[in-house]
């Protein structure tokens, strides 16, 4: 198992009801697998998982990427700074 930390921002944080979570995941888990697991474990996040942006260790990451051990995973909607 790999230990990872999830950070939620903006709408995703509101729906999750928390800024961060820590969890243990299988070593070969992909971003898509992680989204599926969060949709199951946190029903409030299910709709958000369809359009969420994901980062691994502060770089944008995509569905097929494997989540490394001790990863810092960011989850948030498309950005709206400026």
């Amino acid at each position, binding site marked *: 198992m790999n230990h990872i930390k999830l*950070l939620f*921002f*903006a*709408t995703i944080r*509101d729906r999750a009801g928390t800024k961060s979570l820590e969890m243990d995941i299988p070593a070969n888990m992909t971003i898509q697998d992680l989204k599926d697991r969060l949709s199951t474990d946190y029903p409030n996040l299910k709709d958000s998982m369809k359009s969420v*942006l994901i*980062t691994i260790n*502060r770089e*944008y990451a*995509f569905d097929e990427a494997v989540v490394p051990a001790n990863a810092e995973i*960011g989850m*948030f*909607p*498309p*950005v*709206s*700074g*400026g």
Partner: protein
Amino acid sequence: MESSNLPTIYSITESEIDLNELLAKITLVSTGAAAIFTGMVRGVTSRGDAHETEFLEYESYIPMAEAKMKQVADEIREKWPVIEGIAIVQRIGKLYPKTPTVLIACTAAHRDTGVFEAARYGIDRLKEIVPVWKKEVGPNGEEWVEGDYIPKPGE
């Protein structure tokens, strides 16, 4: 001059954006032009969905945002090697109408060097890849503003 020696400022801050201080930091003895873009909270919007804004509340994934601002600065230098100094600053927190929220400034020896385009590119890229969000609060309640850009691998 090697680009690693050129002044590059990138930060997320809760403090007031000080244009004069930033401009001084990115002005070299060879600088003759600066293009500055700053955005502020608009209290009254008439274009599109007309509405009023009481304040905006900004938040950021700060360490990633500062890394992405550095990336934007690197992209500017790659596209416009003549650029001398670059400042990219995003203010976060609760910000009221007329308050500057973001500043992108680029300096160069002359104004016809692409310095205007470089600053334009900087604000456009910031709005695409730098993780900052704003919640808009107005007379009819509050709503997160969401962008529409989906970053590609390598961005």
